[in-house]
C-alpha cells in the first residue's frame, strides 16, 4: 500500500515539476497512439460504413472475423509486424525496425478490428427510420448514409476513445517493434515495464498513474466535445 501512496505522490511531483524525461516519454506515448488512432479512424470508419451499407454474401462471416480480432494479442501483432519489417523481411529495406513508425504500424493493426467492428455496430444501432426520414426529406443516397453516420457519432467516437485507450496502454508491440530505446521509442508502457524490472516500483507506479490520467483526460475531453454538438 505504501508504494501506491508514494507512487501517487511522486506522480504528482513529476507532473508538477514537469520532469523533462517523464514529460518526454508521456508526450511520445501520446503522439504515437494519437497517430495510430488517427490513421486507423481515417481508414476504419469508412470501411465500417462500407460494410454496413452494403449487402453481400459473406457479410455476417466477415463481421464475425472482425470481432474475433478484437482480442488480438498485442505480442502477436508485434511478432507479425516484426516478420515484415525486420531486416530479412519483405519490408526490411525501409529500415523501420525500432522506430516510432514501427510502433504506430503495430498499433494501427491492433486497433483496426475494434474500430471497424464498433463502427459497424454503431451504424446498425441506428434506427432504420433515420434512413427513411432522411430519404423522405429529399436526401440522396450518400446524404442519407452521411446522416446515419452523423446520428451514430456518439458510438463512433466511443469506439475511437476505446481504440486510443487500447493503443496507448499496449506494451507488446511497443516493446517488440520500438525496442524501448531511451529518448527515441520509449513510451509509458515500456518505461513502466523497464522500471518495474529494475525494482524502481515507485517510479513505475508514477508513470502508470500518468498513463491512466492521459486516458481519463482524453475520455473526458471527447465527452465534453460530444455534449456540445
Amino acid at each position, binding site marked *: 500500500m505504501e508504494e501506491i501512496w508514494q507512487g501517487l505522490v511522486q506522480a504528482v511531483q513529476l507532473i508538477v515539476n514537469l520532469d523533462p524525461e517523464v514529460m518526454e516519454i508521456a508526450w511520445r506515448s501520446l503522439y504515437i497512439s494519437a497517430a495510430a488512432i488517427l490513421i486507423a479512424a481515417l481508414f476504419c470508419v469508412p470501411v465500417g460504413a462500407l460494410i454496413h451499407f452494403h449487402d453481400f454474401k459473406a457479410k455476417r462471416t466477415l463481421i464475425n472475423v472482425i470481432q474475433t480480432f478484437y482480442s488480438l494479442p498485442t505480442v502477436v501483432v508485434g511478432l507479425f509486424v516484426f516478420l515484415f519489417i525486420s531486416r530479412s523481411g519483405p519490408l526490411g529495406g525501409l529500415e523501420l525496425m525500432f522506430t516510432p513508425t514501427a510502433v504506430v504500424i503495430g498499433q494501427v493493426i491492433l486497433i483496426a478490428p475494434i474500430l471497424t467492428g464498433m463502427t459497424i455496430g454503431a451504424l446498425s444501432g441506428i*434506427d432504420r*427510420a*433515420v434512413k*427513411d*426520414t*432522411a*430519404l*423522405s*426529406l*429529399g*436526401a*440522396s*443516397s450518400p*446524404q442519407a448514409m452521411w*446522416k446515419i453516420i*452523423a*446520428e451514430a457519432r*456518439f458510438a463512433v467516437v466511443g469506439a475511437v476513445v476505446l481504440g486510443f485507450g487500447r493503443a496507448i496502454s499496449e506494451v507488446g508491440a511497443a516493446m517488440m517493434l520500438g525496442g524501448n530505446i531511451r529518448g527515441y521509442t520509449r513510451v509509458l508502457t515500456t518505461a513502466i515495464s523497464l522500471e518495474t524490472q529494475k525494482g524502481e516500483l515507485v517510479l513505475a507506479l508514477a508513470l502508470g498513474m500518468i498513463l491512466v490520467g492521459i486516458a481519463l483526460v482524453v475520455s473526458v475531453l471527447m465527452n465534453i466535445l460530444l455534449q456540445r454538438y
Partner: protein
Amino acid sequence: MAFLRTVRLEQRAGGKVLLSDINLEINRGEVFVVIGPTGAGKTTLMRLLDLLDKPYSGDIYLDGAKVTNGGASLMHVRRRMAIVFQKPLVFNDSVFNNVAYPLKIRGAASKTVGQQVEKMLQATGLSGYARRKARTLSGGEAQRVALARALVTEPEVLLLDEPTANLDPTSVNLIESLVVEFNRLRGLTIVMATHDMQQGQRLAQRAGVLMDGQLVQVGRPVDIFYSPDNIRVAGLIGIHNIMRGKIASSEAGLASVDIGGRVIEVVTDLSAGSAVDVYIRPEDIILTQTAGTGSARNTLSCIIKSLKLTGSLCTVELDCGFHIEALVTVKSAEEMGLKQGQSIYASFKATAVRVLPAA
C-alpha cells in the same frame, strides 16, 4: 386528371399480399384520408406513395408522370413530397438543425435556411425551441418538429401516417389545425392515414376505406359514414347494431326482414328471399315506456341488459330477441328511470334501417 394516382398498386412481403389492386385518385389541393383498422396496410401504402419502398406491381403517377421507374429520379420526386410518420423521428441534433436539414441537403443558402426555419418554428408553436436538443422533447413536441421539418420545403404533397396517434390533445389540435391551414392557404395536397374515424370525418374532403389491403370504399366522409358499402365498413366506422337476416316479404320497396324470429320493416329494393345485413344507428332508436306512440313503423319490446355512460350520453344495451344498442342522453335516461332488467319499447323508422346484401 388526378394529381396523385395509383394504378393497380400491389405490395407483398415474404410472399404475403399486403396491398392489392389499389387504384387511388387524389386531386390537387384536397385532403384525402385513408381510414382503416390497424394492420390494414395504411403504412405500407404511405411508404409506397413516398417511394420509400418499391411496389410489387402497379404504378404511381404524380402530376401525370409515372414515378415508379426507380433510379436517380426517385430523389427528385421525393423532394416534391414530405411524410410524417406515426412515431416521430427527430435527429439527434438541435430543433433548428432538424428543421433545417431538408433545406441544407437541397443546398439552400444559410440565410434562407435561417428565415425559413424560424417561420416554420413559429407556425408549429415551437419558436424559442430552436436551440433545444430535439431528443429531449415530448412526443407531441417531437411530432411538431417532424411536421415543421416536412413542411419547411413547401412540398406539393404531404403524407401523414397516423401523425397524431398517442399524442396529447393539445398537440393533436395543433397538428390538425396546421394541416387544415396549409391545405386551405397554400393548396397543399394532403394524404392522411388514420384509424381514428372521427379525425377522418373532421379533416377529410374525401376518404378511402382500406381493409385487409384493399380499398373497399371511396367517397365523401359523410357518404361513407351514413351509407357504408358493406357491413365490414359499417363495423369499422363504429356502427354496432349489425344484424344478419332474410327478407320474408317485399312489396313496393317496403320489406319485412326476419331476424332470428323477430320481424322488422325496412325500405329496400332487394327481393324476398335475399339474405341481408341490416344495421340501425344507435341514435335513431327511440326508447319509450309504452308501445304504439309516434310514427315509427317498428316497435319492439325489449329488456335492458345494461347501461353504459360515456360523457353526456348513455348507451343502452337491449335484448329484443336480437341484441341492439340505443343511444340516449344521460338526462333523459334519468328522467325515464332506465334500469337494468327493465322492460321497454324500442322504436325506429323503416327508413332508419340500412339494408345491404349479405357479405
